[in-house]
């Protein structure tokens, strides 16, 4: 377990670092008037969503390969408990990776300049709320996709469209927090409302459906 944790963190962290390299190449053509802070929220969530997909896939592929999930199902533990344990596990991974990615992003693209004058302290709030939704729905979908042919593609196909409302809200809220100002604050809370509403609905739905999915 210890070994796997390290391996997962390493691969997810490196993956997000590689994403930063790709961003650098993509943004190298931008003109002088371009300010990376304008699209920082979108870039960050793009990195998170792809990294989370990698992590979700890996977290269940291992279990399936080594028969862990069967063992868990045989053990006298309620299935909702298994679901929440997996969600929390994925959530912790995701939060660690996000915490690592943020400073790397700031270091590579802002070169010591302040990210913004806005309410940066609110950004972790969005990250946590968004990650809960990603981990909740992601766990359910990954449980499904590990049993399909073409695991990664199926997960992406199911995951990204379903994530759209959450992503929209999270990017809006993060962007507003970076921009700052009273107008941005109302946008921030609208975005947060989207994210939290999505979290509640989707977590409940995933929780209800997990029991049927995992047994199949």
């Amino acid at each position, binding site marked *: 377990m210890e070994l796997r944790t390290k391996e997962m963190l390493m691969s997810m962290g490196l993956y997000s670092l590689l994403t930063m390299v790709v961003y650098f190449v993509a943004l190298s053509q931008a003109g002088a008037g371009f300010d990376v802070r304008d699209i920082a929220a979108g870039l960050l969530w793009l990195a998170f969503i792809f990294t989370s997909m990698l992590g979700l896939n890996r977290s269940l592929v291992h279990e399936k390969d080594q028969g862990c999930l069967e063992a868990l199902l045989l053990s006298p533990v309620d299935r909702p408990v298994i679901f929440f344990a997996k969600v929390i596990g994925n959530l912790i991974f995701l939060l660690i990776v996000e915490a690592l990615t943020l400073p790397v992003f700031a270091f590579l693209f802002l070169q010591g300049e302040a990210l913004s004058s806005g309410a940066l302290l609110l950004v972790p709030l969005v990250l946590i709320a968004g990650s809960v939704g990603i981990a909740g729905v992601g766990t359910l979908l990954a449980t499904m996709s590990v*049993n*399909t042919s073409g695991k990664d593609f199926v997960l992406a196909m199911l995951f990204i469209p379903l994530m759209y409302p959450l992503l929209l809200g999270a990017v809006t809220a993060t962007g507003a927090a970076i921009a700052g100002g009273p107008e941005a604050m109302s946008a921030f809370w609208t975005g947060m409302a989207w994210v939290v509403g999505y979290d509640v609905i989707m977590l409940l739905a995933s929780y209800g459906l997990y029991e049927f999915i995992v047994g199949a």
Partner: protein
Amino acid sequence: MQSGIRRATIALVVGGVLTLVAFIGTFFWAAVPNFGFVRVPEQVESVRYVGPFQQEVDEPRYLTSYVDHTVTVVADGEEYEGRLVEVSEESIVIATDTGDAGAPQTTIDAADFESATVTGFEYGRADWGQKIFYFHVPVAEISFLVFGFAAFYSLRFIMTRKREYDMKARISMEVTLTFVTLTMITGILWTKAAWGVWWDWEPRLTTYFILTLLVVAYFVLRNAVEDEERRALYAAAFCILAFVDVPISFFITRLIPSNHPVIERGGLEGPMLVTFIVAQIGMIALGYAIYQLRMGEMLLKDRLETAKTRLEG
């Protein structure tokens, strides 16, 4: 099963007739709203006549669109009245005696121009592109409705584990895919006509695009699972999750500012409303017919399989 085919045939006929009626109603009966106006110098016979207009112009370059109209130009303190013949950057030419081709012409230096008053007649411009409304909206609403049925059958399947509900859910999703495709085609045509672009990342269009992706993803998922029981369960679970996008897509135009038009309560009247309802019922009947036909086909296939196994066994 025989009754299923009979119902499908009836629905097909009813739907076909109603759609045809709606088609005729759309083109010959329902009113076409105006969008914008056309201004012409002389009155012509038209149902879309609005009335005379009078327009104040304070810069000579705006006069270019009013050639042949009757104008009164104030230049250098003097007033000139007549038919506008030509406008260029240097000068404005007016035929002072209106109506006569060989009338004496006055040339005014554009630098002296102070103001002008243009008069003529105004006509409403029919927005023919709006006709697609009678097909686009019913088709889109039915795509939402059938998705609802698919989610309902998926839920029933998860609760009862009966194979028939899985089949119903799958066929509903197929019908949804048909209607989603139709909505996309009619919508894209309308966007090009009304907004001048094929696609715009606007709330309703974006959420509907996501809906399309979800419907496609449903079939990707089905094709990726080997085991039949598992495939049915996974597909049902995904269908229920994906259904969350339907209310979002439906209500988003009412929640956040969007370019996509919304029908307001009481916004449709008379022939427009009747045509719309006829089209709506016709489309429902067609959707039901497609559903029943597919259902009949599936049941037939099932029977064939059973017969085959029995023959072999």
